[in-house]
């Protein structure tokens, strides 16, 4: 053999040793991009075969792979993962390159390298990827040994999953982050019963931010300034938070998933728990990521594609329902409803006594119970305790689980009666939240005012107004984002004029009723542009911020009647004002009632005095009615008279409203 061949052979084997060393070093360092780069000089490795087969099967473009990586097609083509935690990718280019991420992931399965702080090999860290790739590529255990994943096994055994339930705490107007409600996922344990479900764990996706409100909160929330993470929290803690602290009804939508699907989704949840996404209030929010977690299962792919520009929790329930994924819906009333029902069960005198006991303690009421039978005494003490605790929670803004001595005394007296409490029966509302009207709206109407007739058309992005069909929504709450109303006038002179009447960015009315015990303030806030002039040809707009606080009361409860009074203020900006700004304050009174389930009536009067020097006292009176023709179709009739900047206008109009 010629010497140079010998030399060549030696060099070849030497360089392959060197390269194999570099390969192994990269593998044990967890640098999988390098592993891939070194692969060509390491021809016999099993990874070659796996990558070749994955490419032959085009797994990198498989919906499951794209789902596991949360890849979305970018604006200019190409892929971009929604996951923003660097630890989620095995390749440095994994966020934008699913094919490279797949190769690097396959490489990582050969490595023992652990990723701090989770101290797990890639096989254990990326459990769902491993599970799926192992099945697709039929891993040879001799050449790619399966690692033991004790922590993952413990996680799965702790959750003992059998099914999944989407939990929907309804709207919470007093919190900026939950005004549309919230969704989370409950992991239903094997053998779950009604009694044990509160012990199950939930997967809750939330922004890592304090709910402080304010402008910077809003801006960060809208632009992805917060990070969002999944957390595992016992369901009893979530029940406590929503039903007791925030007085929200909770709906549970049980999903009909196969046990293998549930397990695969939880494998993927395990992959997501340590990492994070950027949180966007309207789009990549809690409800979106509940869906993005479920859609890793091939059959549910595309769940997150149902949404135009925002994801409302209630709309995600509709998506699940529409796909036939919901097997059962369960209603849990809020603490508030339970207390109200308990109040109805006893006489007004006993109710007053309960209130006094809650306020002053049992000792301050000696002999008050004399002559009452034990059942009656029990009912009074039960209500007194509910009052006491409600008040404590309202005052502390946090549920402390500790007992106070006063509480203990009350309960001790209660236990000595040896009477079992009669549980108030609270029936679920006839219409579930997902069965109410859809949240986007468009309308077309005809009207007449002093200076001509008009055709009105308008759109609203989300959510619910007083005159929208009420079933499925709270009766004391209206919330609109992005509402635009425009009018095409035909003036008495025969001219045509298109004019923007108003464009509201946000409008929120939260009129929670007060009574002898529940003392919440009614408040509202709105901001946007409104027309300044009564002249169809005058297109001047003012930008305004409006807000008020006051009181509202429930009347004629069978008809969901509500009356309210607010002290209101309006700050408006326009160059037409003497000092550019105009401020007015005054009162607003209103009432609404449902004469029947389809019929809504609403009346309001308002008078605000100008406190700047424009002499513009804003007065308005309005009377409106609506009739629901179907879940997503309604008619409205509005009569109003109001004073704009340059004069009064009286309007009568009628229109059709569609929800979509």
């Amino acid at each position: 053999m010629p010497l140079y061949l010998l030399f060549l052979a030696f060099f070849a084997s030497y360089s392959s040793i060197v390269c194999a060393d570099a390969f192994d070093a990269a593998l044990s360092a967890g640098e999988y991009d390098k592993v891939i780069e070194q692969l060509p000089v390491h021809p016999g490795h099993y990874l070659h075969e796996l990558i070749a087969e994955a490419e032959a099967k085009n797994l990198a473009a498989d919906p499951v792979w794209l789902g596991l990586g949360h890849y979305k097609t970018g604006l200019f083509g190409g892929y971009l993962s929604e996951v923003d935690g660097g630890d989620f990718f095995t390749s440095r280019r994994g966020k934008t390159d699913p094919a490279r991420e797949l190769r690097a992931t396959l490489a990582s399965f050969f490595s023992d390298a652990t990723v701090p702080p989770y101290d797990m090999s890639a096989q254990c860290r990326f459990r769902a990827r491993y599970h799926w790739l192992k099945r697709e590529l039929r891993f040879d255990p001799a050449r790619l040994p399966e690692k033991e994943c004790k922590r993952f096994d413990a996680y799965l055994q702790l959750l003992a999953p059998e099914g999944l339930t989407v939990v929907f705490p309804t709207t919470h107007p007093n919190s900026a982050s939950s005004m549309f409600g919230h969704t989370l996922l409950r992991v239903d344990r094997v053998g779950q019963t009604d009694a044990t479900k509160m012990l199950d764990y939930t997967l809750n996706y939330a922004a890592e931010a304090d709910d402080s409100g304010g402008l910077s909160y809003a801006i960060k929330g809208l632009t992805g300034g917060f990070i969002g993470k999944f957390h595992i929290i016992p369901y009893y803690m979530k029940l406590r938070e929503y039903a007791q602290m925030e007085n929200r009804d909770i709906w549970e939508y049980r999903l009909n998933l196969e046990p293998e699907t549930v397990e695969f989704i939880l494998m993927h949840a395990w992959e997501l728990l340590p990492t994070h996404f950027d949180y966007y209030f309207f789009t990549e929010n809690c409800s979106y990521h509940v869906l993005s977690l479920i859609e890793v299962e091939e059959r549910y792919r595309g769940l997150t594609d149902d949404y135009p520009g925002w994801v409302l929790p209630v709309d995600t329930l509709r998506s699940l329902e529409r796909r036939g994924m919901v097997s059962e819906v369960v209603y849990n009333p809020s603490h508030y409803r339970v207390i109200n029902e308990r109040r109805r069960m006893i006489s007004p005198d006993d109710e007053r006594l309960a209130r006094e006991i809650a306020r002053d303690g049992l000792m301050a009421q000696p002999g008050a119970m004399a002559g009452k039978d034990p059942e009656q005494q029990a009912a009074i003490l039960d209500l007194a305790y509910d009052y006491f605790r409600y008040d404590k929670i309202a005052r502390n803004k946090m549920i402390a689980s500790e007992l106070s001595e006063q509480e203990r005394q009350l309960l001790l007296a209660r236990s000595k009666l040896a009477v079992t409490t009669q549980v108030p029966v609270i029936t679920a509302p006839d219409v579930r939240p997902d069965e109410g009207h859809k949240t986007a709206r468009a309308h077309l109407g005809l009207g007449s005012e002093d200076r001509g007739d008009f055709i009105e058309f308008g759109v609203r992005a989300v959510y619910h107004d007083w005159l929208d069909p009420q079933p499925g929504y709270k009766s004391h709450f209206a919330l609109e984002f992005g509402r635009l109303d425009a009018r095409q006038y035909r003036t008495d002179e025969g001219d045509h004029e298109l004019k923007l009447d108003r464009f509201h960015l946000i409008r929120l009315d939260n009129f929670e009723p007060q009574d002898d015990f529940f003392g919440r303030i009614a408040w509202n806030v709105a901001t946007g542009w409104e027309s300044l002039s009564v002249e169809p040809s005058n297109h001047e707009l003012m930008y305004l911020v409006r807000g008020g606080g006051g009181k509202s009361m429930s009347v004629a409860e069978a008809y969901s009647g509500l009356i309210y009074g607010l002290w209101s203020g309006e700050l408006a900006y326009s160059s037409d004002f003497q000092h550019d700004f105009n401020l007015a304050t005054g009162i607003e009174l209103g009432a609404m009632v449902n004469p029947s389930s389809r019929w809504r009536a609403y009346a309001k009067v308002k008078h605000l005095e100008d406190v700047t020097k424009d002499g513009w006292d804003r007065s308005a009176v309005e009377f409106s009615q609506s009739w629901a023709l179907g879940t997503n179709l309604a008619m409205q009739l509005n009569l109003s008279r109001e004073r704009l900047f340059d004069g009064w206008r009286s309007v009568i109009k009628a229109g059709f409203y569609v929800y979509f």
Partner: protein
Amino acid sequence: MKMKAICITLVATLGLSAQVAMADDSAGCGIGKMILEGKSSKGANITAAILNDILIPRTFFMTTASIMDEEILGCDPSKTVMKDEEQKRFVAMNMDSLSRDMAQGQGAHLDALAAVLGIEASDRDTFKSMTQDEYATLFSSADTSAESVLSSLHTAMMAHPTLNKYVQ
């Protein structure tokens, strides 16, 4: 016997039936076995680590219940039985609701506790009225701890003619 008792607690907390554990006496029971095996070494750390890092976010506990900080956050290797921790955590986090339910002789939290303790449907009413009768002992003072409530409950069940079978 002790192992069996722990297994019962473990499995009952998971919402499984207590019979499974009893039938499975020698082999141990699922997660319980794993945790018991790891009692002195790695297993303990694994369970503690899960509770620490992933299952229970620190911030959550800091803001809601300082009472649990020691048990959950302080990775104490002697506290190895996760299910005991789960049980204690449930009681500690729901002291007020449990206290109310016991005084009233009914309620969702008391039902859950009965399930946790493995009490069969036929004995649930007996259990609930027992807690009402024993309220003064179970909550002897306002700052009673979760451990003390559980241990008083244990004692009361031991002394009870039908409920004693659940605590032997």
